[in-house]
C-alpha cells in the first residue's frame, strides 16, 4: 500500500472539491465490479493467473514440451540408438536457405571427414558441392510407436544420402537433437512421478501432524528438521550409490524417483501442516461447525479448496528440484544408467573438461534443462500469486 519512503518525499495536502452528497451510496457497484464480486474462487484464480504474463507463457511452453514426449519418435529426426559410424563427434550442421545467391529452400551441406594425423582429432568440413534439401513428413529410421504400430515417418529429415545433425553427434555418432527429444521422456516424467509420490507423502504426514497436533506433531516436526539438516545432494548420492548394479534400468528409474521423492516431501509437509493448523481456526470453519456441518463436509468443502491451491503452487515449485536432482545424479554417474536416456545421462558425457573444450556441443542438453526449470519456476510463481486471489 505505502509506496517507498523516498517516492513520497513531497506529498501534497489533498481536499476533494466535489460537493458532498449523502444520498449517493459510496458502495455503488459497477458491472465489472459485480462480475468480480460474484465470480467463484477458481475463476478469480484464473483471472489473476492470466495477468502474470511470464507464468502463462511458461505454462504453454511446458504443455508443449510435455505434449512432445507423446510423439518423440515422430519429432526426432533419428531413432534413439541409431549410430552413424562415419560421423563420430560431428559438429552441429547449420540449415541454409540460399546457395551462392540462389534460393533453394531449407537445406544442409554435406560434410567431409578427415583425421588430423598430428593430434588424431576428427576434422569435419562443410562440402559446399553437396546440397541436401530438408524434407518434411518424410521416411527415415523405423520405430515402434508406443508399441502400437510400426512407422518410419518423421517430422523432418535430410534428402537421401545426407545427414542432419542440427546439434552434432556424440562419441558413438548418435544425433544429439534426437537424444534430447527422447531424453525429455525420462527427465520430465521423473519430475511428475516424483512430485506425485512426495505430494501424497506430504498430504498424509503433514495432514496427520496438523490434525492431531500434540506429540504426533512434535515428533513429525523433529523428523522433518533432521531430514532437512542433511545437505540434500550428498544424501541422494549415497542412497542411489547403494542401489544394486544388477537391477534392470527400469527398476533403477523407479528407485531413483522414490529416492528423490523421499527427501523432497518435508517442505510440502510443513506447508500442509501449517495451513491446516491455521485454516482450522478460521471463522468460516467455526461457522460451518456451528451450522451443523459434518467434519467430512468441512474438510472436503472448506479446508481442502483453501489448501489445494496453495499446495499445487508449492508442488509446482518443487518439481524443478526433482528434475534437477535426477540430472545431477545421472550427470555424476550415480543415477540412471545408459540404455535409459535422460538429460542427465546425456550430460554425463560432458563431465570432463577436455570433452567440453573439444566438443562443446555435448553440453547442449543443458539448454532444455535450464528452460524447463525456469518455466516451472515462473509457472509456480504465477500459481502462488493466483492461489490467494483476494490479496
Amino acid at each position, binding site marked *: 500500500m505505502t509506496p517507498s519512503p523516498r517516492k513520497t518525499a513531497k506529498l501534497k495536502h489533498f481536499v476533494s472539491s466535489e460537493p458532498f452528497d449523502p444520498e449517493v451510496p459510496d458502495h455503488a457497484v459497477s458491472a465489472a465490479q459485480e462480475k468480480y464480486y460474484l465470480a467463484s474462487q477458481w475463476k478469480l484464480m484464473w483471472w489473476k493467473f492470466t495477468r502474470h504474463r511470464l507464468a502463462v507463457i511458461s505454462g504453454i511452453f511446458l504443455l508443449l514440451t510435455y505434449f512432445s514426449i507423446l510423439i518423440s519418435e515422430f519429432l526426432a529426426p533419428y531413432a534413439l540408438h541409431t549410430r552413424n559410424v562415419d560421423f563420430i563427434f560431428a559438429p552441429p550442421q547449420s540449415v541454409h536457405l540460399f546457395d551462392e545467391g540462389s534460393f533453394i529452400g531449407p537445406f544442409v551441406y554435406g560434410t567431409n571427414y578427415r583425421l588430423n594425423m598430428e593430434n588424431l582429432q576428427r576434422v569435419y568440413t562443410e562440402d559446399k558441392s553437396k546440397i541436401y534439401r530438408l524434407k518434411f513428413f518424410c521416411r527415415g529410421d523405423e520405430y515402434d510407436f508406443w508399441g502400437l504400430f510400426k512407422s518410419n515417418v518423421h517430422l523432418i529429415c535430410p534428402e537421401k544420402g545426407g545427414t542432419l545433425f542440427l546439434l552434432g553427434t556424440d562419441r558413438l555418432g548418435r544425433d544429439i537433437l534426437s537424444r534430447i527429444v527422447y531424453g525429455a521422456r525420462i527427465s520430465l516424467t521423473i519430475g511428475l512421478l516424483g512430485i506425485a509420490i512426495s505430494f501424497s507423502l506430504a498430504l498424509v504426514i503433514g495432514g496427520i501432524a496438523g490434525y492431531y497436533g500434540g506429540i504426533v506433531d512434535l515428533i513429525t516436526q523433529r523428523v522433518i528438521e533432521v531430514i532437512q539438516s*542433511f545437505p540434500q545432494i550428498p544424501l541422494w548420492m549415497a*542412497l542411489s550409490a547403494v542401489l544394486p548394479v544388477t537391477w534392470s534400468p527400469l527398476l533403477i528409474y523407479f528407485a531413483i524417483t522414490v529416492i528423490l521423492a523421499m527427501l523432497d516431501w518435508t517442505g510440502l509437509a510443513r506447508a500442509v501442516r501449517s495451513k491446516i493448523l491455521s485454516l482450522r481456526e478460521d471463522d468460516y470453519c467455526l461457522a460451518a461447525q456451528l451450522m451443523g456441518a459434518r467434519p467430512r463436509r468441512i474438510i472436503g468443502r472448506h479446508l481442502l479448496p483453501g489448501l489445494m491451491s496453495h499446495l499445487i503452487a508449492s508442488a509446482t515449485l518443487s518439481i524443478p528440484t526433482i528434475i534437477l536432482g535426477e540430472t545431477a545424479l545421472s550427470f555424476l554417474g550415480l543415477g540412471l544408467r545408459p540404455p535409459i536416456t535422460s538429460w542427465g545421462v546425456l550430460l554425463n558425457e560432458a563431465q570432463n573438461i577436455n570433452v567440453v573444450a573439444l566438443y562443446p556441443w555435448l553440453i547442449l542438453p543443458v539448454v532444455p534443462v535450464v528452460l524447463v526449470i525456469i518455466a516451472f*519456476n515462473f509457472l509456480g510463481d504465477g500459481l502462488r500469486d493466483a492461489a490467494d486471489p483476494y490479496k
Partner: protein
Amino acid sequence: MIGYIIRRILIMIPTLLAISMIVFIIIELPPGDYLESYVAELQAQGESVDPQEIEFLRERYGFDASPVDRYLRWVGGMLQGDFGYSFEYRLPVSDVVGDRLFLTILVSMATIIFTWIIAFPIGIYSATHQYSWGDYGLTFIGLLGLATPNFLLALILLYFANVTFGTSIGGLMDAKYIDQPWSMDKAMSVLEHLWIPVVVIGTSGTAGMIRRLRANLLDELQKQYVVTARAKGLPPFRALVKYPLRAALNFFVADIGTLLPSIISGAELVAVVLSLPTTGPILIAALQSQDMYLAGSFLMFLATLTVVGVLISDLLLAWLDPRIRLAGGVAR
C-alpha cells in the same frame, strides 16, 4: 541468554544422533561386507592377502558383531576422533579427509559472505524501488540465477573460460601447490582461485536471498510505524535504516539455516565439475566404490557442518532478538 544457549545445544544432540543413525543405515545398506569383496578382488588379481591385516580390520571394525554393536562402536569411535578406516585408500578416514574438510568449510563460508554482500544492497534497492525497471531487471536476473542449476552453470563457465581465455579455471590452487604444506603463497593462490567456485555456488542462494529480503522489507515498509515516522518528518533514509531494515535483518541471520544445506549440496556438485580439492570428488569416488566408512564419515561431517551452522545462526538471532531468547522459542 546462557539458559537459551544450553537449551539450544541440548536440542542439537538428539538431532545429531538421529543423523548418525540414518548415515549408519546407509552405510549398512549394500549387501555383503567390504572385506569379503576386497579379499576376493585381491585373490582374483593373484596378489597375496595378509590374513593378519584382514583379521585385524575384521576385529577392529567388528564385522562379525551385530548391527547395533557396530553402530555403537562407530559412534563411539567418532566421539574419540576415530572416524573409521577407508578401505580404498587403506588409511584411517581422518587422514584422507585432512585438508579437504577445511577447504570445504572455507568455500562454504566464502560463499555465504559473498551471498550476503551481493544480496543485501540489491534486496534493499528492489524493495525501496518496487515495480521500477531496476526492480524488474534484478528480479528477472535473480530468477535466472535461482533456476539455473549451479553445476550446469559451472560447465558453461568452463566452456566460455576455455573459449575466451584458453585456460582452465578448475582447481582451487595452482598445480604446484598441491600436496605442499601451507604457506603464504599457497594461501594467496587459493584466494585467487576461490572466487570462481564461490560465484558459481553462490548464484542460486543469492537470488533466493534477494527475493526473501525484498519480500520481508516490503512487509516492514507497509507497516504503520513507517507511515508515522514519515509523517513526522523523518528523512527517508533514516526511516528506512533505523527500524524496517533492522527488523528485516533478523531473518537475514536466520536464513543461514536454510542457506547452508543448499550451499553444501551445491558445493559438492560444483567441486566435481571444477575438480576442486574439497570433499565432493572424494565423496563420489567413495560412494562409487562403496567405500562406505569413508562415505559415511563424509556424510556425517557435512550434516554436522549444517547443524552447527544452524546453531550459530540461531544463537546470533537470539543475541539480536530478545523475543527469541526470552520466550525460548526455536528461531525458525
